[in-house]
């Protein structure tokens, strides 16, 4: 069931074929819960697809202008945005309060699990999967050796660099972790916020608390990472 659950998105996108597709559809016929899950994910997928292509943001912009024009015809920009700032500040206070009181158990210094790449229809990258296995069992130096090989072959793949940098953190080599995480945190890849967080952890461990605080404040507050960053920030303050 679990390996099939991993394939739901591929099924929705029409990427399953042959035996895999047959196995998936047979399971759907036999298992009502699984079928319902597939149907729900399909509905969610379709909704997002529809909404993202609806040009809603353009409409919102026009609505915002029309409202501003109607409500504050002669006011300055500051006067116009003041209520928004007040509401946003209140929302931030509430959010931070919630995060502080209800999410107290996150392990702030724990490294993330290294994500396997094994997916349907793709040949697995054996070297990478070995690095995943070693990293997740905390054999950081061995994992790093493989990751460095991969970095040499594909220097543009930030994913390898990110996990290689984390291996230093796993070894509590904070200086090296800082050096390796810094360019990722300042880059534009999807790892930039995670890199900022672990760079902040390294900085804290190295005694640069103020630098860590500055960095943590730049992490968006959504999701698990946002909550962790806020919690670490609270701790450092």
């Amino acid at each position: 069931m679990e390996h099939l659950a991993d394939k739901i998105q591929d099924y929705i996108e029409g990427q399953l074929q042959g035996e895999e597709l047959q196995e998936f559809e047979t399971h759907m016929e036999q298992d009502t819960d699984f079928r319902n899950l597939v149907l729900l994910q399909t509905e969610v997928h379709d909704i997002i697809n529809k909404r993202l292509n609806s040009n809603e943001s353009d409409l919102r912009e026009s609505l915002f202008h029309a409202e501003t024009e109607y409500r504050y015809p002669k006011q300055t920009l500051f006067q116009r945005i003041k209520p928004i700032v007040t509401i946003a500040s209140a929302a931030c206070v509430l959010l931070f309060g919630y995060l502080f009181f209800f999410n107290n158990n996150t392990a702030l210094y724990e490294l993330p699990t290294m994500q396997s790449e094994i997916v349907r229809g793709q040949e697995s990258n054996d070297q990478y999967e070995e690095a995943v296995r070693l990293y997740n069992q905390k054999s950081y130096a061995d994992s790093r050796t493989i990751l460095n090989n991969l970095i040499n072959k594909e220097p543009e793949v930030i994913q390898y660099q990110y996990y290689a940098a984390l291996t230093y953190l796993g070894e509590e080599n904070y200086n090296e972790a800082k050096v390796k995480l810094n360019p990722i945190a300042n880059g534009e890849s999807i790892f930039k916020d995670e890199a900022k967080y672990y760079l902040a952890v390294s900085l804290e461990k190295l005694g640069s608390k103020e630098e860590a605080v500055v960095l943590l404040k730049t992490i968006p507050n959504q999701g698990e990472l946002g909550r962790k960053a806020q919690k670490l920030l609270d701790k450092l303050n």
Partner: protein
Amino acid sequence: MHLDQIYIQYLKDNNSTGIQLIYNKFSKQIVTLIQQNNGSEDDGYDIFQESLVDIYHMAHQKDFQLTTSFSSFLKLVCKRKWLNALKKNQRMPVTNLEQSVLYVEDESNKAWDEMLETVNRENIVMSLLDTLGESCQQIIKRCMQEKHQEKIAESMGITYAYLRKKKSECMATLVRKVKESGLF
């Protein structure tokens, strides 16, 4: 087709002059309505704006036709939205309000109710999407909007396999949240 269909068209076309007209003509009555039902002026404008967005989405559904005045329809949408907001925030007992807010005038309201329910479900999914971490949001949104996933992976500094795996994981998290919302 009702003459007021023009206001729907203004929204569909994102016609800024038409949208300004809608604000000038209808916003005050809605804001007053919300204020009379335990809301503030800002609540009124928020409900007005969000309702116009809902109408925009409804208008894109197949066969959408306005069969009454825009004012009545807008009021129905705003009342329903405000009722949901009150229920969510538990700002006042809604039993009595519900009667005045949601009474059904004719059969067409029934169809609108269904459309509004659909739009509400969509709104919930989109707001839950915004609660995911930034990388998950980025992956889901880009994969839905751009055709070449290999290129997305490349621009994100990850392998194609990692992108697919991560997208699967992010969608599963979102679906779990949707399920927990109890509305699906």
